[in-house]
Each structure stands twice: as structure tokens, then as C-alpha cells.
């Protein structure tokens, strides 16, 4: 980026309701079926009304022993365990030596941090006594606990940064880590996205009307870009990648999965605090500018991993930003992995890398009828050629937007 050495992704890991590792997520995206479980509903938290969400994409009963020794796991919050496990998978795939990992930077993004631990602490404060608070819970309740645990797992003494910019955070973390690697400050960066679901979080997003409402038969489904979309599916999980300079990765015989071509970010100051902006121009402009600076145009993008989640205002903005860039031209295939994996959880980078690898994506679940206001139709499941460049888009509630373009290594 910016004429600096190129940065590549050499390892990938994931923890999701569909299973662990690249293959599990790839199979899920090919199959096009979300896996949902019932969320606990202790009395009083959720609004007891028709249309209240009851489900989410949950990680339950996962055995972390393959990646985390039990002695270490017992001191970790669920997000820390998920993030460390995903990072271990990514590092194992990349094959970087321990010496380089010792100097690694760790960048983690999270929307809500270890929310179950925060919830438990506040219950201790309000239902018992402030003196009842568990120090172990508090230590692991901080947003940067997963990043710290990744550093501990690899003895990584490089910069340790946790980015919390809602849905845009994962790509901001990726781009910042890539810049550190490109500048030569660190030989390697481990970049992860992680989130867990607490009952309070689920209940609150439901009260805010953000979640997909149950259908007549009780099923809950996100419908990205669909006219009938009603909200997103909440998910927990983690995704991780390893970044290196391309020259060094190739020098040690690694086979990069994808190359970072450029990153962009912007903000719409007209956005409200809790929802998505309606001003597509404010967010399309920085992406267009950065694309031009990188010597690319919309026609050079052959696949889009959108942030569409089934959110009514979120998908509207996503579609309008893309339409502003492409105008009347035909858009490249638009993937909506959140229809399968849910919102948050694995994050946008892992599906983006899978798209750049040419993994097949199934039809977008829930999409039945185009929304005429959007002018965008998601992928229908037909076979796609391996794209040379994939745009990953993440637009956040509150006004932030971030994008990354990955290049496929197919021809190399």
C-alpha cells in the first residue's frame, strides 16, 4: 500500500457455529444455510412481544483443547478463547517461525468485547455487592483481553491494538496492521475479529429493532438486499489472518492466500448515533478516491464481499454506496456472507479471503424479491470464476465505513 512493499495474507483461522477452520466456513458459505440456536431468555430482559427474536448463531460446547491448553483456557473469557483458537489456526497454516512471531503485532477488532463477563460483573455489583465482583471476571472483561491473550499465546511483543469502531473495526484493524507490516516495523501481524453474544446484548438489539424478526413458521432468517428484510442475525465467533510482506513470505516458501491491494475508510458526520447513514455520497467518495489513487476503477473489481446483513438501513446504505461507484454499469457478483454466518462473529475478512481464493458461494439465503430502491441483487449461487480482485465492504452504524481490496494469487 502507498508504494510500500506489498503485504499478503498467509494464514487463516475461524471459529464459528458452523465449525472451526477454513473448510468449515467455506462449506457453510457454499451450503448457504445459517446455523442458529435458541438464546437464553431470562425473565425481563427481552421484550415479550410478537416479532421478538429468539435465535442467534451461537458457539456452544466447543472443545478448545486442540488450540488452548486447559490450564490457560480456564483463565480466558469466551472471546479470548475464540480469538486465540482462530489465531492458532491461522499461524499454523502460515508456517511462520517462532522468532518472527515473537516480534509480531496483534490487532484485534471487537464490537462488544467480552460482554458476558461484563454482564456477570454488573449482576454482581447490582444484585449482590460491589465487593462480590470476581477479579478474574474483571481481568477478562476488558475489550483488549482477546488481543492480550493472543500475545501471551505467541509471546508476541509487537504493538498490541484493539480497534472498536463497530462494523468497520475489522477492516480498520486489518489496514492498520498491514501498514505496520509494510513499513517494516514488524515482520508479521496477527489480525483477528471476535465477538460473543450475551443475553443482554441480544435483548437490547432486539429492543432496538435491529434483529431479524421471526417468520410465520418461527424461523429466523436474514434477507440481505431483499424487500422483506427485517434485520440481521446475531452471531458469535472469531476470524483471524496472518499478514507478512510478500517478498519475505515467498522467500520462506509460503504460498500467500491473497494480497492486500488497498484499504480505505471514511465517515459520514450526518449519520445518527445508532443507525446507518443515509448519505451514500459521503461514504462512496473516500472509496472512489482511494481506488483511483491505487490505479483501479470499479471495472477492476470482480467480486464484492458486502456487509449486507439484512438490516433495513444498513443494506440500503451498502447498496447505495455500491451504486454510486458503479453507476448504471453492471455490478460484479455481490456476496452477502452475513446471511449465513450472521453479523459480527467471524467478521468480514475471512469470507473476503475465501472469495479471493475462488471458494464457491451458495445462493444468498432469504433473498426472494429485489428491493427496487436498492438496485442491487445478491449472488444467486451460480458458479463464479475466481475473481482477480475482491472488494470487502464494512459500513458501520454510527457513520464509519471501511473497505479493503484483496487480490487473488490465482495467476501466480
Amino acid at each position, binding site marked *: 500500500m*502507498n508504494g510500500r512493499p506489498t503485504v499478503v495474507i498467509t494464514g487463516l483461522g475461524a471459529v464459528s457455529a458452523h465449525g472451526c477452520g477454513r473448510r468449515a466456513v467455506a462449506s457453510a458459505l457454499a451450503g448457504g444455510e445459517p446455523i442458529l440456536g435458541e438464546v437464553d431468555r431470562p425473565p*425481563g*430482559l427481552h421484550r415479550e412481544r410478537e416479532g421478538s427474536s429468539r435465535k442467534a448463531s451461537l458457539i456452544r460446547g466447543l472443545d478448545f483443547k486442540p488450540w488452548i491448553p486447559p490450564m490457560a483456557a480456564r*483463565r480466558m473469557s469466551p472471546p479470548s478463547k475464540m480469538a486465540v483458537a482462530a489465531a492458532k489456526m491461522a499461524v499454523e497454516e502460515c508456517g511462520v517461525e517462532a522468532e518472527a512471531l515473537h516480534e509480531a503485532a496483534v490487532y484485534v477488532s*471487537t*464490537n462488544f*468485547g467480552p460482554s458476558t463477563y461484563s*454482564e456477570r*460483573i*454488573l*449482576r454482581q*455489583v*447490582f*444484585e449482590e*455487592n460491589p*465487593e462480590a465482583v*470476581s*477479579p478474574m471476571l*474483571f*481481568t*477478562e*472483561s*476488558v*475489550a*483488549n*483481553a482477546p488481543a*492480550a491473550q493472543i*500475545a*501471551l499465546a*505467541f509471546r*508476541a*511483543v*509487537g*504493538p*498490541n*491494538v*484493539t*480497534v*472498536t*469502531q*463497530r462494523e468497520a473495526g475489522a477492516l480498520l484493524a486489518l489496514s492498520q496492521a498491514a*501498514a505496520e507490516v509494510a513499513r517494516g*516495523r514488524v515482520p508479521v501481524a496477527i489480525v483477528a475479529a471476535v465477538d460473543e453474544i450475551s443475553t*443482554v446484548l441480544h*435483548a*437490547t438489539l432486539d*429492543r432496538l429493532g435491529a434483529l431479524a424478526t421471526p417468520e410465520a413458521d418461527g424461523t429466523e432468517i436474514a434477507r440481505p438486499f431483499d424487500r422483506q428484510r427485517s434485520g440481521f442475525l446475531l452471531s458469535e465467533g472469531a476470524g483471524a489472518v496472518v499478514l507478512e510482506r510478500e517478498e519475505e513470505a515467498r522467500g520462506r516458501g509460503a504460498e500467500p492466500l491473497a494480497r492486500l491491494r488497498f484499504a480505505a*475508510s*471514511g*465517515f459520514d*458526520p*450526518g449519520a445518527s*448515533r445508532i443507525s446507518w447513514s443515509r448519505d451514500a455520497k*459521503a461514504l462512496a*467518495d*473516500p472509496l472512489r478516491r482511494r481506488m483511483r489513487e491505487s490505479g483501479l476503477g470499479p471495472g477492476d473489481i470482480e467480486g464484492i464481499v458486502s456487509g449486507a446483513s439484512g438490516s433495513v438501513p444498513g443494506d440500503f446504505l451498502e447498496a447505495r454506496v455500491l451504486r454510486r461507484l458503479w453507476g448504471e454499469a453492471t455490478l460484479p457478483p455481490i456476496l452477502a456472507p452475513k446471511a449465513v454466518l450472521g453479523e459480527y462473529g467471524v467478521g468480514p475478512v475471512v469470507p473476503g479471503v475465501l472469495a479471493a481464493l475462488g471458494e464457491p458461494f451458495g445462493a444468498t439465503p432469504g433473498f426472494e424479491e429485489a428491493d427496487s430502491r436498492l438496485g442491487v441483487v445478491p449472488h444467486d449461487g451460480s458458479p463464479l470464476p475466481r475473481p482477480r480482485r475482491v472488494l470487502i465492504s464494512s459500513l*458501520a452504524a*454510527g*457513520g*464509519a465505513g471501511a473497505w479493503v481490496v484483496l487480490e487473488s494469487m490465482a495467476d501466480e
Partner: protein
Amino acid sequence: MAVSSKVAITGIGAVSGWGWSAPALWEGLLSGRPAIRRPERFDIADHRTQLASEVPKALPQLRSIIPGWHRRTWADRYALAAAFEACRQAGVEGPLRGAGVFFGGSTAGMAEGEKYFKALLGRSSEGLRLHDIASHQMNGPGDEVARHFGVDGPVHTVSSACAAGGLALGRALEALRAGEVELALAGGADSLCQLTYAGFNSLRAVDAEVCRPFRKNRAGLSLGEGGAVLVLEPLERALGRGARPLALLEGVGASCDAHHMTAPHPEGTGAALAMEAALADAGLAPEAIHFINSHGTGTPLNDVAEGKALDRVFGERARRLPVTSTKACVGHLLGSSGALEAAATVMCLEHGQVHPVPWGRESEEVLEGIDLVLGEPRGLISQGNVPARALSTSFAFGGANAAVLLAAFSAIPAEGAGP
């Protein structure tokens, strides 16, 4: 945009236990007294300790310039008040096109989130209000600043516990150097809340008395709240528009202890790495530093480790290097502490004085090897046209470390300046 080598600070704003402005903070810091007392924000009776540095009530005129005061979280108010002050001093006003916001925080709107949660549990008489969580997330204060000042560039919130503010300054510096933005509002804001108050007490990390950094009888930290914003821009841009640079941001370094979730590395290796990285980033040798605004929490483990880190970086000279701690005066502002302490350091450089840490009891002894600036401000002496420089350090939970290198600004070309 042009790629810039030198970055100037042209405005600072601060909200702290000493009040709603940077001059109020500076006056309080020079007084040699702590702004640490019994807080009134929430019922403290059942907590193990009963002290914190709480921001005093705002004057009505301040409430009138921050739109929607009553709807905002405490952290958002601190962020906006600091941003107003910083922008006014820098002579910039919105909409700030081509600018970015880089914030650090760790509690943000948690205090309001707690009200919501308490109501959800049926333990509040106020009823459930969804707007209490509208700005609950960590990015709330930074987003509010961006929204209010019409910022359309990158908006980026870091939440790496107590290192977040320093790391946010580092991200802002990189964005300016790369020409990604032409102006940056960097800072942070956090408010007192029950979760962190009870949490730090559960770790027995809070002193029941006012904190005593670097004293042999220290027994923990004092929590605080507030926020700070620094206006950063390329030096040539600042001079070109006639702005007065207050100081230069010359380098930021970051590292991780990778040692323990809460305890610092006992030899201070991670802290030393961050300081060395900041020096390298600025292209400077340790000899260029005139004083340290330390992390200086007052916890038994931190202060010893920090002393060892200073020894590692500065060798024998560490014993003669003046050390202060802003936390001793206004408590630990957690994720925004790095921003507030950078603002305090800028004021030290601007006024040519290192602010003191408050006197404790007469009998208190200072840790061996630490030249603590105690009770009275100390004048900064630099030779020739070498500008005074300082490191402001932040060492966090989970081992995340940040060090910020700041230099006094002089219109005379400086010696030994880095990239």
C-alpha cells in the same frame, strides 16, 4: 495530500477532576494538590474504597455550547468539551473536511449502560430508556466529535485499556505522515462507572487513600475520569495558516509485555520496548529526552517495573531524569489517560515547567533511582537551541504499552530533530 514529516500540536482541550478546561488542569497540576475526593456520581458506600477524581459540575454556559447536553453520556460531554476547546485554540472550526478523528477509550458510555442494565434488572426507579445505550459503545465519544465537527476522513477508536489514548495518538501521527488526513483530532474520553470501580477494587489495585506514585508506601491507583483532545497537523500547514504550534509530536512507540494479563513484566521489558520504539520513530537517542510523564499509577508492581524500564532505556541517566505522574493529581483516566497526559506534557513543554506530583505525608520516601518531581514544579532547562523533549508513557492491562514523544516548539530550527 502532501506527505508530512513534522507534526505540530496546535490546540489542546482537557476535562479532568480539576475542571472543564486545559488551563484549569494546568493550574491544578501546578498547585501540587490532588483533585481526588469522594465521588458523587454513584453510591460508593458499598465499595472497598471511596475516592476518585470526578469531573466537577459544568458551568451553565458550557452546557449551552454542547448541543443536546442532557441526551449525552458523560464521556461524550467530556470529548465534545475538550474538542471545542482544542479547536478554538487551534483556530479551526467545522466542517473539517479531510480531517480524521483518532480516539482511545475504555469505558466510554458504560456509566449510562449501567443505568440501562440496572433498569433491565428491575432495580432502578428511572425506568428503561434505550437512549441510555445509544452512545454506549467504545466508539461513542470519537464518533460524536467527528459528527459535531463534520469530519469526513477516517474515524478510528482504539480500546487497548490504559494504552488506548497513546495508541490513538500514534494512529493519528501515522495518518498525518502518510498524507491520509491533513488535520487530526486525537484524544479520548472515559467516565467513572461502577464496573471499573468495583473491578479495580476487586483486584485490590485501588489505594484507599490518594494514590502515591513512586513512593515506597504506595498502595495502588486512584481512578479518575475526563478527556482530552489534541489538534494535530503538519507543521508547515500550521505555520502556513498562522497557527501557533504548542509542541511537536515527534514519535509514538508501541509494544506488548506478553507476560501477564494484569501484572507488568517485572523487568519492565515491554515498557522499555515502547519507549525505544518511540525514540526510533522520532530518530532520536535517549539523551534527547528531558523528562518523563510516567504511567505512574502508584500500584506496587507498576512503579517498580517502570523504574526498571527507565533504567533499561536511559541507563545511569535515568536517576537524573525528572519523572512526574499526572495520575497522581487527577487519577487514572484509563483509556483516555494517554491523551490527557499527552496534553499535560504539552503544557509542561510550553510553559517550560514539569508539573509536580502532590506531596504526600512528610515521611514518604521515594523509590530509589527515581527523580520524582515532588510538591513543586521544576523548570525545564535545555541547552542551546535544542528543544526540551519528553516521553509520556502508558502501560495497560494485558501488557499493551504506548510511549508518546513530544518536543517543545521553537521558531528557531531545532537540533537533533528526527524525521
